[in-house]
């Protein structure tokens, strides 16, 4: 589960507006509209998928930045993604990574890892001073 709608609890289907590219070709007075291709590579479809993926990953990563405060509904609304079931824009990540118990105290963590760090540094210090087994 990566996103959730706070109105209908849908966590699968969503909608987002993305920009894609179309190719226009004026041929004997007629306008032909099609996907643009470069050497059999469908750039229109690729751009659509990339832009969709970029926006979704951005919203997942920058959860708070993707939200705007709506004074009418008195709640935060997602600026990019809406729910495809109910149309609500109250779409966020299902959890917040900002909670106080996520990490232990840094001093305690450093102290607990002190021995491992000392061995790591010792390993680097003496790495070039290994005993020569076959000395000529």
């Amino acid at each position, binding site marked *: 589960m990566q996103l959730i709608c706070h109105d209908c609890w849908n966590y699968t*289907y969503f909608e987002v507006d993305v920009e894609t590219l179309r190719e226009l070709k004026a*041929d004997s007075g007629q306008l032909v509209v099609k996907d643009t291709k470069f050497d059999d590579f469908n750039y229109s479809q690729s751009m659509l998928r990339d832009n969709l993926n970029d926006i979704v990953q951005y919203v997942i990563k920058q959860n708070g930045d993707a939200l705007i405060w709506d004074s009418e509904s008195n709640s935060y609304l997602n600026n990019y993604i809406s729910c495809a079931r109910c149309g609500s824009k109250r779409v966020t990540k299902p959890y917040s990574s900002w909670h106080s118990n996520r990490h232990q105290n840094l001093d305690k963590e450093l102290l607990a890892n002190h021995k491992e760090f000392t061995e790591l540094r010792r390993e680097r210090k003496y790495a070039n001073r290994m005993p020569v087994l076959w000395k000529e």
Partner: protein
Amino acid sequence: MQIECLSCGRSNEFLLPLWVSTTFKFKEDGTLSILHVKPLESLEDKLTDNKSLREISCKECGSNEVDIVFNEYDNQDDEVSALEGL
């Protein structure tokens, strides 16, 4: 209708960005699958709107200097002869 690149004058293929509404779903492996794509902008409106004319670019040289001629007949005689030809 004719579209002409004022920069290179060679290409008859042009690119136009369009906004679409995309319905997608999260698959079980976390990847995205597209269910539906709906255009949000009218292609005809963008072609006739002078503000959007700069968005059209030449596929060959990338220039935005593009001229669109909707009526291909320069004078009425040509139009009449074309209709007679039909």
